[in-house]
C-alpha cells in the first residue's frame, strides 16, 4: 500500500535502477516530449523531490491492447518503474492481488488520495441494459467509473475505446458503449487515442503529468498536442511518392515492391492524427505503412464506421446504402441531367407549337 511519501527517484532506486539509468531516462523522456535537452535536469529534479502521484487504472469494455502496448515501452525503466509506480495503487490487470483484496485496495486508495490521484481509464462503459454488458467487481463498470472519477484530479482516456468508443461503439453499437467523456463531464480528460496508443506516447503523457504536475497542452478534441498535432501523412517517409503521383495501384504490383504511396489502396494517413510516422512502434523498428500496409486510422473518431480499410473514398451509410460520395454524387447528377434533358425536350416542343400559333394568329 502506498504511503505517499516516497519520491519517484526513491521508488526507482528501490527498484534497483542506477543513477546513470535514471538520468538517461530523464533525457529520453525530455526528447519524447519534444522538450529541449535543458529540460532533462528539470525532469530529474522533479522526480527526485516530488512525491509520487498515485494513479488508479481501470479497465472497462476493452481488449487490453492499451496495457499490452504500455508494458512494451521501449525504455526498460518505463515498464519497471513507471508501471510499478502507478500500478501500486490499482490496476486490476497487472496488480498481484485479485478479487475482494483488489477491490479493497481500490477503495483505500481512492479514500487516501481523494482529489489527488490520476484516473487512467482503459475501455469504456456500455450504457444499455443499465450497464450490464460490462460487469467489473460484481457491479456495472459505469458505477465503478463514476465513483473513481469523483475523487480524481485528472483523467486519462487510454486508447480509442475510452476516447471515442472504438469497435464496441461502431454501428449499430448494441451495448450502447460510449466514450468516457460522455459520462464524466466535470473533470479534465486527456484523450490518448489509438488502438492501441503508442507505448512511448502513453508513458510520455504520464511522465509529463507526474513531473510537471499539470496537464499537457491539449488540442480541440482533448488530445495532447505534443503527440497528436500532426497527421501520419505529414511525416510519412512515403510522402515524396504521394507528391510525385506514384501510388500502389493494387496489392503486390510493381509499385508496391518499390514502396510507393498507399493512398489508392486506402491509406488513412492523410486523415489520422498520431505519432506513428515519427515515434514508430516496438522500439522505433517500424509502423504499419513501413510494413507495406496503409494506415487504418485507428486513432481517429469512429474509424470503424469509415467504410473499408482499403478504399480512399469513404462509404456513406447515412444514406442507407453503402456508397461513396462519387457514386452518390454521380447518381444525383445523372438524375438531374435526365430531368434537364426531359425538361428541355418539352420546352422545345412548347416553343415550336407556340411559335406556330403566333404565326397563325398573325397570318389570319
Amino acid at each position: 500500500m502506498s504511503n505517499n511519501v516516497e519520491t519517484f527517484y526513491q521508488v526507482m532506486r528501490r527498484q534497483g535502477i542506477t543513477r546513470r539509468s535514471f538520468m538517461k531516462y530523464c533525457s529520453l523522456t525530455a526528447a519524447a516530449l519534444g522538450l529541449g535537452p535543458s529540460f532533462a535536469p528539470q525532469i530529474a529534479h522533479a522526480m527526485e523531490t516530488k512525491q509520487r502521484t498515485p494513479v488508479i487504472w481501470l479497465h472497462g469494455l476493452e481488449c487490453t491492447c492499451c496495457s499490452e502496448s504500455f508494458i512494451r515501452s521501449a525504455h526498460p525503466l518505463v515498464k519497471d518503474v513507471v508501471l510499478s509506480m502507478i500500478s501500486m495503487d490499482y490496476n486490476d490487470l497487472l496488480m498481484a492481488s485479485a478479487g475482494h483484496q483488489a477491490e479493497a485496495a481500490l477503495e483505500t486508495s481512492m479514500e487516501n488520495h481523494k482529489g489527488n490521484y490520476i484516473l487512467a481509464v482503459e475501455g469504456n462503459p456500455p450504457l444499455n441494459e443499465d450497464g450490464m454488458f460490462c460487469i467489473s467487481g460484481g457491479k456495472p463498470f459505469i458505477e465503478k467509473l463514476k465513483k473513481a472519477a469523483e475523487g480524481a484530479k485528472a483523467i486519462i482516456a487510454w486508447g480509442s475505446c475510452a476516447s471515442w468508443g472504438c469497435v464496441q461503439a461502431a454501428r449499430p453499437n448494441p451495448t450502447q458503449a460510449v466514450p468516457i467523456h460522455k459520462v464524466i463531464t466535470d473533470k479534465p480528460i486527456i484523450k490518448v487515442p489509438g488502438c492501441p496508443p503508442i507505448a512511448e506516447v502513453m508513458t510520455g503523457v504520464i511522465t509529463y503529468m507526474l513531473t510537471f504536475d499539470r496537464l499537457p497542452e491539449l488540442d480541440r478534441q482533448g488530445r495532447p498536442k505534443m503527440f497528436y498535432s500532426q497527421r501520419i501523412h505529414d511525416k510519412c517517409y512515403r510522402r515524396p511518392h504521394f507528391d510525385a503521383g506514384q501510388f500502389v495501384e493494387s496489392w503486390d504490383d510493381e509499385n508496391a515492391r518499390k514502396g510507393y504511396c498507399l493512398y489508392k489502396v486506402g491509406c488513412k494517413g492523410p486523415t489520422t492524427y498520431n505519432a506513428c510516422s515519427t515515434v514508430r512502434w516496438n522500439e522505433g523498428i517500424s509502423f504499419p505503412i513501413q510494413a507495406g500496409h496503409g494506415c487504418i486510422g485507428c486513432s481517429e473518431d469512429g474509424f470503424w464506421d469509415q467504410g473499408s480499410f482499403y478504399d480512399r473514398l469513404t462509404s456513406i451509410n447515412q444514406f442507407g446504402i453503402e456508397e461513396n460520395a462519387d457514386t452518390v454524387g454521380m447518381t444525383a447528377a445523372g438524375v438531374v441531367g435526365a430531368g434537364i434533358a426531359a425538361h428541355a425536350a418539352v420546352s422545345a416542343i412548347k416553343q415550336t407549337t407556340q411559335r406556330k400559333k403566333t404565326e397563325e394568329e398573325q397570318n389570319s
Partner: protein
Amino acid sequence: MALEKNLAPGDSEEKVRRQTAVYVYEAPLRLWHWVTVLSVLVLGVTGFLIGRPLPSVPGEAIDNYLMGYIRFAHFSAGYVVTIAFIGRIYWAFVGNHHARELFILPVHRKRWWSELWHEIRWYLFLAKTPKKYIGHNPLGQLAMFCFFVVGMTFMIFTGFALYSEGAGVGSWQDQVFGWVIPLFGQSQDVHTWHRLGMWFLVIFIMTHIYVAVREDIMSRQSLISTMVGGWRMFKDDRPD
C-alpha cells in the same frame, strides 16, 4: 423579383417594363462571376483528382510532382474563389440593388411569393408566358441562394478546415476554420462532405447553365449576354 424596387420616384412601372434595356450587372460583379466560373472549374477537376488520383507516373519521385501541382492548383483556386466571394459580399453593400439579390431573399413580400409561384408554374409548363424581370426571377433567386450561396459557403468552410490540417496547429486557418473538423466527426468525414459538396455544386452548375440557356431563348429578357455586358435586354415591350 418584381420591378417596382427599381423605379425612380414618379416613374410608373409600365414605363420601366417597356424599356428595352436596363443596366443590371456592374463590371466588378461580372468580373466576379467569370473568375468564379474559372476557379470552380479548376477546383472541381483538381478536387476530383485529389480523391481519385491519375494513374501513377513513371520515374523517380524526385523528378515528379504531379499530385503536388494538382493540390497546389486546388488550393490556389480555393484562395481565389474565397477572396472573390468576400469581394462579392462587399459588393452587395456598395453595388446597385441587384447586387444584393443573391444574399437577401425578400421573403416578407407577398408579391415575391406569388411571383415565385408563377415562376414554378412556368417551369412546370402550366403558365403560358413568363413574367419580365430585371434582376433574378424569384425562383432563380431562391435557387441561387440555396445552391450557390449555401454551397459555396460550405465548400469554403470545409475546404479551409482541410487546408488547416496541412497548415498546422496554430496557423490562422486552424484558428479560424479548425473547429469545423470535430463538428463533422473527424478529418475523413470532412473529406467526404467536401466531396459531396462538389457534387452539389456540379448539380447546381448543370441546372444553372440549362436554365440560363433556356431562359435566354424562351423568356422575355436576355440572360447570358447580360452577364457579359451587364445590360438586360427585353424582347418585347408588353408590360409585366
